[in-house]
C-alpha cells in the first residue's frame, strides 16, 4: 500500500534531520516505527505522506501510496487520497482540534469534503463512532468543544475522527503516551480489532518496545535521525542486528541476548 524509496528530511537551511531510508507497508499489516524522542520518527512518517510542517523539507526518489505516485498527484487528487484513505491520530491531543469550533463541525470536515454522505449521515456516523470508542453521551460531545473534555476523552475523539472516512491506512502517533495502562490496552486492542476485522493497515509510532513486540508484524528502528534497522518483529527481537536495537531488546526483555 505504501512504498517509499530513499526519503529524507531536512530544514530549509540544509540541516539534515532524517537520513534517507526506505519504507513499505503491505495491506493489512501493522508496522511499527520505533524511536526515542527526537529520533525523527514522527517527521519521517509525516514526510511519507507530504504532511510535514512548512518549516521542513523532504526529498525522495519515489513515494507510492495505494499505487499512486504521491508527488505526481494534483493537489485535489492528493487531498482526496489523504482525506479518504488516511487516518491520523496525533501524539498531542490538546491542539489537534480548534478550541472555538464545535467538535461536530471538525469531525465532519473530511466526511463532507469528500462526499462520503450527507451531513446528516455524517453526524450519524460520528455518533456511532464516538460510542464505539467508549464515549457516553456522544450528542453532547459533538455539540461541545474540545476544552470541555479530559485528555483521555480528547484522544478518543481523535480516534473517532480518524475513522470517519473509513480509511485504509491509519497512523497512530504515540497513541498511548497520555493514557494509563488499562486504557492503553483498550486502545491497542481496539485498533488490533480494526486491523483484523476491516483489514486496515496501521503504522504505529511509539517509543514503547513492548507495544512493538506485542502488536506489530514488522518494525523500523530509528535512532538519532537514522533508520538503523528493519525486520519482522519476531526477528528483531530474537536476532537484533544493530547495537541500538540490541540494547533496546535487552532492556525490554530484561535478559541477555546472544
Amino acid at each position, binding site marked *: 500500500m505504501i512504498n517509499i524509496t530513499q526519503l529524507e528530511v531536512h530544514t530549509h537551511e540544509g540541516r539534515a534531520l532524517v537520513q534517507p531510508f526506505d519504507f513499505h507497508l503491505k495491506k493489512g499489516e501493522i508496522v511499527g516505527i520505533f524511536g526515542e524522542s527526537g529520533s525523527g520518527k514522527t517527521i519521517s512518517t509525516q514526510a511519507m505522506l507530504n*504532511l510535514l510542517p512548512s518549516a521542513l523539507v523532504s526529498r525522495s526518489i519515489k513515494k507510492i501510496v495505494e499505487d499512486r505516485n504521491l508527488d505526481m498527484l494534483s493537489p485535489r487528487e492528493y487531498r482526496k487520497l489523504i*482525506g479518504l484513505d488516511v487516518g491520523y491520530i496525533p501524539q498531542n491531543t490538546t491542539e*489537534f482540534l*480548534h478550541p*472555538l469550533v464545535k467538535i461536530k463541525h471538525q469531525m465532519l470536515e473530511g466526511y463532507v469534503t*469528500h462526499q462520503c454522505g450527507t451531513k446528516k449521515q455524517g453526524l450519524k456516523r460520528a455518533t456511532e463512532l464516538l460510542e464505539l470508542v467508549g464515549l457516553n453521551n456522544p450528542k453532547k460531545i459533538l455539540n461541545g468543544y474540545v476544552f470541555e*473534555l479530559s485528555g483521555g476523552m480528547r484522544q478518543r475523539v481523535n480516534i473517532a*475522527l480518524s475513522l470517519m472516512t473509513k480509511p485504509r491506512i491509519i497512523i497512530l502517533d504515540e497513541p498511548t503516551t497520555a493514557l494509563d495502562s488499562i486504557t492503553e490496552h483498550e486502545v491497542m486492542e481496539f485498533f488490533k480489532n480494526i486491523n483484523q476485522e476491516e483489514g486496515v493497515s496501521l503504522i504505529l509510532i511509539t517509543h514503547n518496545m513492548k507495544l512493538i513486540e506485542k502488536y506489530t508484524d514488522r518494525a523500523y528502528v530509528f535512532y538519532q535521525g537514522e533508520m538503523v534497522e528493519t525486520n519482522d518483529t519476531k526477528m528483531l527481537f530474537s536476532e537484533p542486528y544493530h547495537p541500538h536495537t540490541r540494547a533496546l531488546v535487552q532492556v525490554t526483555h530484561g535478559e541477555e541476548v546472544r
Partner: protein
Amino acid sequence: MKEIIRRIASSIVLIIVVSFVTFFMLMLIPGDAVEISLGTEATPERVTELRAALGMDAPWYTQYMSWFTHALAGDFGVSFTYGENVTTLLLSRLPVTLSLMLMAIVIAVPLALTIGVIAALKQNKTFDIIARTLMQMGDAMPQFWIALIFLVYIAAQIEIFPISGFTPFSESVYGGVMSLFLPAVVLAFGMIATLIRIVRSSMLHSLKQDYMLMTRVSGVHPVRAIIKYPLRDALIAPLTVIGIQISGLISGVIVVESIFSLPGVGRLLFSAVLKRDLFLILGLVSFIVTSVIIITLITDILYILLNKKMRRNES
C-alpha cells in the same frame, strides 16, 4: 463569577481614586484658579465673591466630596471660561468626538485585518516586508505631523476636504463625513500599526497549530481551512488590545481635533488646560478616564468569560 465581581469592584475603586487624584492635582495649581479665570476683572472683591460662590473656601476634602456627589448625579459644575454647565459642554462636543473615533475604527480595522492576514499568509515575501516597513515608518511619525501633512498637501489642494471646522450631520451628512474623513484617517494611522501586528502574529500563530494538520489530514482545501480556523482567530485578535487602542485613540483625538479645528471633547480639554479651567478639566478628565476604565473592564470581563469556558475542564 467571583473574579468578575472583583474586577467590577476594583474598577469602581479605580474611578474614585482617579477622580480624587485628579482633583488633588488640580488643587495644587499654582496661582489661584479663580484669579486666572477672572483675568482682568480680578478685583479682590470679585475674587472672594466667586470663591465663596464656588465653595472654594471650604477645606479641600469637603470640596472634593461636594464635587463627587454632584458628579454622580451628572453635575460636574460650571466652566469658568464658557460660563456653561460642564456637562452640557461635554454632551455637545461628544457626538463629534464619537463620530470621529468611530470613523477611525471603521477605517483602521478592516484595513488592518486585510493587510495583516495577507502579510501573514505571505510571510517574509515582498508584501509582508513592504507592509512591515511602512508600519515601522508610520510608528515613527508623530500624529500631528501626519495631520499637518494631510492638511497642507491634501485638504488645501482638494476641495472636498475642508481645512477646518465641522459640518454637523444635521446640516449635511455628506459634509459631516467629509469634514471628519481626513482627521479619521490620521487617527487610523496611529492605530493601524499595532492592529496589523496583532492580526499578523495571531494568524502566524494559528497557522502553526496542530488543527491545521488536522485539516490537511482530512483533506480540506487549504483556503477553506484557513478561512475556517486561523482567520477566525485573527478576526478576534484586535479585541485583545482594545483597551490600549482606545487610550491611544483619545490621545490622538486631542491633537487631531486641535489641528483640524473640530469642536470635539479633545479640543475642549485642550482649551480647558490652557485656561486652567478647573471644573472643566476635572469633569472632562474624569469622564475620559472613567470611559477608558469601563471599556477595559468590559473587555476584561469578556476575556474572563471566554477563558473560564476554555479552562474549566482542562485536565
